[in-house]
């Protein structure tokens, strides 16, 4: 039986269907999870998708963080459940303190939508194991508040522990400190990424299929550990 990957829908999520589709294309079973339901329905991993949960009111991800599903998810993530937060999902993971730092308004003040080149810097996480270290990929990026910030000590810690998962190449689109596009927690099961791998899983609809390995990584890891 293929691993079951939950995709949470919050009010204002946009990319939940694409995330579910990416899971299916990668060979997994996608399970729809609802923000108001604190039951994770026994899924083997969870994707927090992109979008504008609660209209980005207050701060991006600030209200979603307190949704009933998040209480269960935070506990499960601390116990090792693989969790990938993409864009708004990354913001929710930071607001939940599952990942350090915060995402702030792009330094240009513009909403950026482009195909972005990245370098995968860490392949030890559950979500990046299928990439080669240093591999360059191109996947869509679309955000208005994607500037990753943290204090210098935290940035040094992330770098020192190899927890920068992906870095922007060629241009830094949003003013992220040290060109950081994605990070992981200490254990490597929780990853936050500002660009969108779920939009790059099929030649017909994406700029590449470079995003697919995020999803095959977690599925292969789940199969190997079962």
């Amino acid at each position, binding site marked *: 039986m293929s691993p079951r990957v939950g995709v949470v829908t919050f009010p204002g999520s946009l990319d939940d269907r694409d995330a579910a589709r990416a899971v299916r294309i990668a060979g997994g079973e996608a399970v729809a999870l609802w923000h108001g339901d604190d039951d994770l329905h026994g899924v083997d991993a969870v994707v927090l998708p992109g979008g504008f949960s609660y209209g980005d009111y*207050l701060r991006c991800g600030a209200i979603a963080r307190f949704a009933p599903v998040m209480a269960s998810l935070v506990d499960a993530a601390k116990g090792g459940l693989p969790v990938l937060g993409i864009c708004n999902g990354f913001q929710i993971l930071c607001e939940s303190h599952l990942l*350090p730092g915060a995402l702030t308004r792009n330094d*240009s003040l513009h909403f950026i939508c482009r195909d972005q080149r990245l370098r995968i810097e860490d392949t030890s996480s559950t979500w990046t194991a299928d990439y080669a270290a240093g591999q360059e990929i191109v996947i869509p990026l679309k955000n208005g508040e994607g500037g990753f*910030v943290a204090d210098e000590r935290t940035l040094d810690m992330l770098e020192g522990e190899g927890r920068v998962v992906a870095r922007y190449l060629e241009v830094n689109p949003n003013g992220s400190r040290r060109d950081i596009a994605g990070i992981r927690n200490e254990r490597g099961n929780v990853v936050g990424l500002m660009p969108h791998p779920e939009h790059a899983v099929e030649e017909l609809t994406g700029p590449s299929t470079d995003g697919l390995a995020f999803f095959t990584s977690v599925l292969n890891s789940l199969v190997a550990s079962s």
Partner: protein
Amino acid sequence: MARVVVDVMLKPEILDPQGRAVQGALGRLGLTGVTDVRQGKQFVIDIEGDLEGERLELMHRLAEELLSNPVIEDYRMQVLPDAQDVAQ
């Protein structure tokens, strides 16, 4: 009846692109000598009864955990005794 006013500002070391854009506009509109603009938020919360004890502690905690993000923001909270007085 009490009124709680919570001001939330980005920490000084966090870049504030919105404040910078406002600073540029002030200059273009003829205001000379503007050296810095920081943009923040103000929450005005009216609440029944006196705010004290556990409820005051909870209000403080929610100002820190919900209304602000301590990673990037500072908050300042004032409790005003009577919303009616404040409104006048």
